[in-house]
């Protein structure tokens, strides 16, 4: 290639230049993504780790982490985990059934589109607006509460409170179920009609199909969805804060209080609580990975 004319050389170099640019673009964008992740996830996580074991004077200490095992904070973690697990479980079951129904051939297209669109919106509807919507509907003076009362059903008299654990469950489900619909729909769409027909043709019935084919194929996706919903609920802050103002002890609200100085400022303890959150999510992810390996051992690896 050394004896190329300048014109010819220029012509032949262009594909190389294009190839170089094509190779550089992914590196550039993926690099940006990694910088972003490191700056706003890896960095803060490391900072939390160090701060959780550092006293206000800068020395190593375990006093903040030790406090996590005390009665109050252990209960806070247990409540947060229970709330997350309950809403994730109900969300997974209800979302899966909803998504399955809307994917059926007999479901009208307009209804499928409506549910998909609504799910996209509702899955992202959280925080103060969601809390307000529920207070104005199911609060002590909420529209539905008063209607039910007029109809002779006093839900608050019967022990229900929107500002309790089960009130939070009800509120969280508003975004958990649609989120499940969104994330499980691709998995359901991937279920091939031929699998069911083959199972039927071979003498099986609906139960045989679901027991041996449908459920095992969906299980890894359902487990992944459960973890996502669990994490989504575990990290929720604005919605429970606006609803309960801390009446129900939840880890994100405790961290917010300690960091912002609401009641008492103790950033080191806040960091320790954050570290606990990371550990809980890490444990959930590890459990998921193990279960996923077991249930999805037939998948491509």
């Amino acid at each position, binding site marked *: 290639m050394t004896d190329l004319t300048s014109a010819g050389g220029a012509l032949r170099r262009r594909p190389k230049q294009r190839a170089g640019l094509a190779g550089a673009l992914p590196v550039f964008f993926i690099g940006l993504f990694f910088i972003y992740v490191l700056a706003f996830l890896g960095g803060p996580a490391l900072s939390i780790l160090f701060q959780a074991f550092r006293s206000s004077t800068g020395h190593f200490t375990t006093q903040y982490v030790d406090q996590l095992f005390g009665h109050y904070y252990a209960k806070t973690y247990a409540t947060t985990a229970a709330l997350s697990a309950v809403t994730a479980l109900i969300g997974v079951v209800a979302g899966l059934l909803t998504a399955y129904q809307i994917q059926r051939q007999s479901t009208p297209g307009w209804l499928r589109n409506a549910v998909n669109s609504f799910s996209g919106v509702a899955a992202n509807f959280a925080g103060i607006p969601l809390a307000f919507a529920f207070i104005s509907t199911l609060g002590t003076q909420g529209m539905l509460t008063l209607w039910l009362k007029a109809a002779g059903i006093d839900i608050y008299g019967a022990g229900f409170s929107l500002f309790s654990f089960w009130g939070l469950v009800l509120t969280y489900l508003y975004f958990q179920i649609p989120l499940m619909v969104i994330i499980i729909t691709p998995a359901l769409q991937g279920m091939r009609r*031929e699998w069911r*027909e083959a199972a*039927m043709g*071979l*003498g099986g*019935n609906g139960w045989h199909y679901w027991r*041996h084919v449908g459920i095992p194929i969906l299980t890894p996706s359902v487990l992944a969805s459960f973890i996502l919903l669990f994490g989504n609920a575990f990290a929720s802050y604005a919605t429970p804060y606006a609803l309960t103002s801390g009446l129900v002890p939840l880890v994100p609200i405790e961290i917010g209080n300690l960091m912002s100085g609401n009641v008492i400022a103790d950033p080191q303890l806040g960091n320790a609580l954050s570290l606990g959150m990371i550990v809980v999510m890490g444990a959930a992810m590890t459990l998921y990975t193990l279960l996923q390996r077991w249930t999805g051992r*037939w998948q491509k690896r």
Partner: protein
Amino acid sequence: MARLEIRDVNKSYGVQHVLRDAGLQFIEGELVTLLGPSGCGKTTLLRIIAGLETADSGAVLLDGTDITPMPPNKRNMGMVFQAYSLFPNMSAADNVAFGLHVRGAEKGGRQHRVGELLDMVGLSAFAQKYPHQLSGGQQQRVALARALAIRPDLLLLDEPLSALDARVRVQLRDEIRRIHEETGVTTIFVTHDQEEALSISDRVAVMNRGQIDQFDSPHAIYQRPATPFVAGFIGVSSCLSATVVEAGMVRVEAETFAAPAARGLAAGTAVSIYLRPEDVRLRATAGAPQPTAGRRGTVRTHTFMGALTRVTVRLANGSDIFADLATPEAGDFPAGAEIAVDWNADRAQVLPAAREG
């Protein structure tokens, strides 16, 4: 082995009439192909036989018993789909065992049958592989073994080769024929590929717009197409418009030719003459006598096909006629050459033109 009969089956999807009075009778142990272009209703008919679709009217009879209302899991029919029908969460062996398992077969017998079937399709070494670890051809072999494991009364193959590459397709086609001969199970094979249909079948049902146009042996389908559609769909034909002038004689333009196939047709009937390219002969015109059944034409193109070359000749009336010649012989008729066209009158198929379309 089982005897299947389809009686006047109709099926519509909305305003689209997919099957129109489709009727067929199968002989025990034969391999029949439903052949036709996309949308002709062949897969719908197969799915009605399998019980996966419901006919609007008509009946499906197996050994004289009306099975039309019977659900698919009670019909004892093995089915192989186009592709991707293996259960991805099960190994090849478990896929083959599925039908036996749900039917309550005991484990020992099940394992023996699975081994037997995987051996038959040449995949004993792949028993523990998952579908994604198998090639397309291997997956279809496993699907075939799975369908046969239940000892079906009927084996239904819904374009099982269409997703495979050409070489594997031919291999598996031959294997299906071999397995059919070994098992003797009555088999219905759906395809849009005429070569596949003609090479594998005992009989072929050519379908067009929801109807069975012709149901006959591959040889008869090729040599004696019953309708203009079959003549045009199976193989390559040259078509000449003609009119019957008297028993066994037709006129094309101003020339009259012998056409034994036109014997039953009344004088004045408009007909189409279908000529297979292997029945057409070309001759140089210089110094030759006028052929008894021929026309003059000009060589237009050559299409090299290996041992044969297809020569396209433009006749004086503007019609194109194809002739398959041995490749060295085709060199004698270069493009632009004026030549005489001749054909084997006994093998020319004559069909009423009014039925076309």
